[in-house]
């Protein structure tokens, strides 16, 4: 059944306006899409980061669902506790409603400091969905590099200088790492492809057990881009195959969107100030390397996707 915006717009907004994320931030769009996708009541945990500090301050909260933030590295362990209490009380006949559990974390809280608690929760098989909104840096503390930051990017702790041209390490491929956990569902999504994202979230909520989704989340502050570019940039990320849309369901990899004309990576990099320095002649090699890495990953993905069909 195709998803219709008209139908979806009739649903109550569970992440309301009045939150204090920057205007033009990609994250609130993602949160709204995720909450809209659920046909069940949802309880969320949130790692420390931009989303958390801006959405629930003092007596004000943008969340119309039960929500818990405990610390930076443990959104997965925290929601695992909530989900386990749900199982305990359900077993005892003290609760009978169907409730879904979701954790939200930024790339820093997920790829780096929270990887252990995420991996542990997935291995234990909690019935939960973990969603990483990946803006490619520690934005809340002021744009420091994370292991999700792309090669060559200028951040406050990997500044592009006269000797070192930005971050000199490759991005960690977290989606692959999560797929290697052999959990029932892993996917990558983008807010620009909202139908794809919502379909994936819906699917995830129907699957019992641990699920992981990685969603690209443009940040105009950290990406040094225009405030009205979030959706355009997340579309370019997909069309350049920097952020391929795919899912791994019970070990079967499937590309869920193939760009009609795969665009060069520079189309994604150009509008972003964090890559400005890459367009000087001495840094051409970085652009070349980025393109090669992307092509290699995309080819591998297509191969995996076709073999497993």
């Amino acid at each position, binding site marked *: 059944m195709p998803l219709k915006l008209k139908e979806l717009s009739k649903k109550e907004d569970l992440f309301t306006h009045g939150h204090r994320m920057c205007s033009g931030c990609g994250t609130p769009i993602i949160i709204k899409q995720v909450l809209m996708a659920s046909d069940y009541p949802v*309880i969320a945990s949130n790692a420390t980061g931009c989303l958390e500090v801006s959405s629930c301050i003092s007596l004000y909260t943008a969340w119309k669902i039960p929500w818990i933030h*405990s610390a930076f590295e443990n959104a997965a362990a925290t929601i695992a*506790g909530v989900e386990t*209490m749900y199982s305990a*009380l359900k077993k005892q006949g003290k609760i009978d*409603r169907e409730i879904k559990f979701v954790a939200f974390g930024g790339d820093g809280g997920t790829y780096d400091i929270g990887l252990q*608690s995420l991996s542990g929760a997935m291995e234990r098989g909690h019935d939960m969905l973990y969603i990483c909104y990946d803006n490619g840096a520690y934005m809340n503390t002021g744009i420091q590099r994370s292991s999700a930051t792309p090669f060559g990017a200028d951040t406050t702790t990997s500044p592009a200088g006269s000797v070192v041209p930005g971050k000199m390490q490759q991005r960690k491929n977290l989606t692959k790492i999560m797929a290697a956990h052999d959990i029932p569902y892993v996917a990558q999504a983008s807010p620009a492809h909202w139908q794809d994202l919502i379909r994936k979230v819906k699917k995830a909520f129907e699957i019992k057990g641990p699920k992981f989704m990685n969603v690209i989340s443009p940040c105009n502050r950290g990406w040094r881009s225009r405030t009205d570019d979030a959706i355009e940039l997340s579309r370019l990320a997909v069309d350049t195959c920097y952020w391929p849309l795919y899912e791994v369901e019970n070990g079967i990899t499937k590309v869920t969107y193939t760009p009609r004309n795969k665009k060069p990576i520079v189309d994604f990099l150009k509008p972003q100030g964090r890559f400005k320095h890459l367009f000087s002649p001495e840094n051409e090699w970085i652009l070349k390397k980025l393109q090669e890495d992307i092509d290699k990953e995309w080819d591998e993905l297509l191969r995996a996707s076709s073999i497993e069909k």
Partner: protein
Amino acid sequence: MARVVAVTGNEASAEALRQINPDVCAAYPITPQTDLMQRFSGFVSDGKVDTEVILVESEHSAMSACIGASAAGGRVVTATSSQGLALMWEMLFIAAGMRLPVVMPLVNRALSAPLNIHGDHSDSMGARDSGWIQLYSENAQEAYDNTIQAFRIAEHMDIRLPVMVCFDGFIISHSIERVEYLEDTEVKNFVGEYKQLYPLLDIDNPKSYGPLILPDLYMEYKRAQHEVMTKVKDVVLDVASEFKKLSKREYGLFEAYRLDDADIALVILSSAAGTAKDVIDEFRGRGIKAGLLKPRLFRPFPYEEVADTLKKVRAISVMDRADSFGGYGPLFMEISSALLHIKERPLLINKIYGLGGRDFLPGHAEMVLNELMEIVETGKFKTIKEYIGVRE
């Protein structure tokens, strides 16, 4: 009817947890606690409890899961020691700040480096400012009794705070002692039904836990936390008096042993108090007025009551099984603070003993009591802080 058994402290503590039958338990192994959670997992596997166990990948996640589970709305327990508690440190503050009544047996053990698996109090003392209530136990019986009472204290509607039940690694956790168990139904009725105030699982009334609080309100939250702590003493005493009806065993904020007319006294926590009491008896037998104060409730610390009990003593040695490098022992700092407002206060000295499981022998207590006698006679002391039982 009570059952009399010969068990270790870990066994007694696990038995208390079986009788309480908590909803969720998160666990990660660490010596000397490991055996406690193994025993409890055994109860789970044999269907003797309904508890859902989360076998996490670290203590940080154990406490995080306890926080989630407790906020969700149910009775929650975990246990740890030493490095495990240190790894939980960040989350201890969060459990307390959210007012979540998690209960945690803490089998006291030394902290690294150097690595040492034996008992001292450096782990719990390091967590004393985390907002947790701390109860200390002298033996397996007290570990069992305190664990049962901890749930009532933690879950009391005026309190809603996490409680740590401390008992000495190996000395209590692994030694077999005589313990009287209560009946399952007695324990069940004593702890009662659990009621959560604002459960996350109440989907129709969504609540937010863990907001960002800026300088305009943060202090008010912290003061509120302190104010709750001031109510804990009364609850601890109420719970103890109810527990006495059930068990005939008496608990207070601390134990005052032969202190009424004492000239000299030791202040000493946990298992070493047992050893020291024998020596006190011996001194009394010789006509020397010696006594002992054994704190039970260490956080919140009952300053007035302690001061009132100790004020007439002439010389006191505070015995610390933990250190604050470059400072006095943590218990000494509390006792000094308690006595600060008394004009004619006892002379105070501080002995650091038993670190990393070093034995505390009757001879040590005797030596310290002799020193106190000399202090009373001369009105002078050599040094305030000193290590005893240490190889020179």
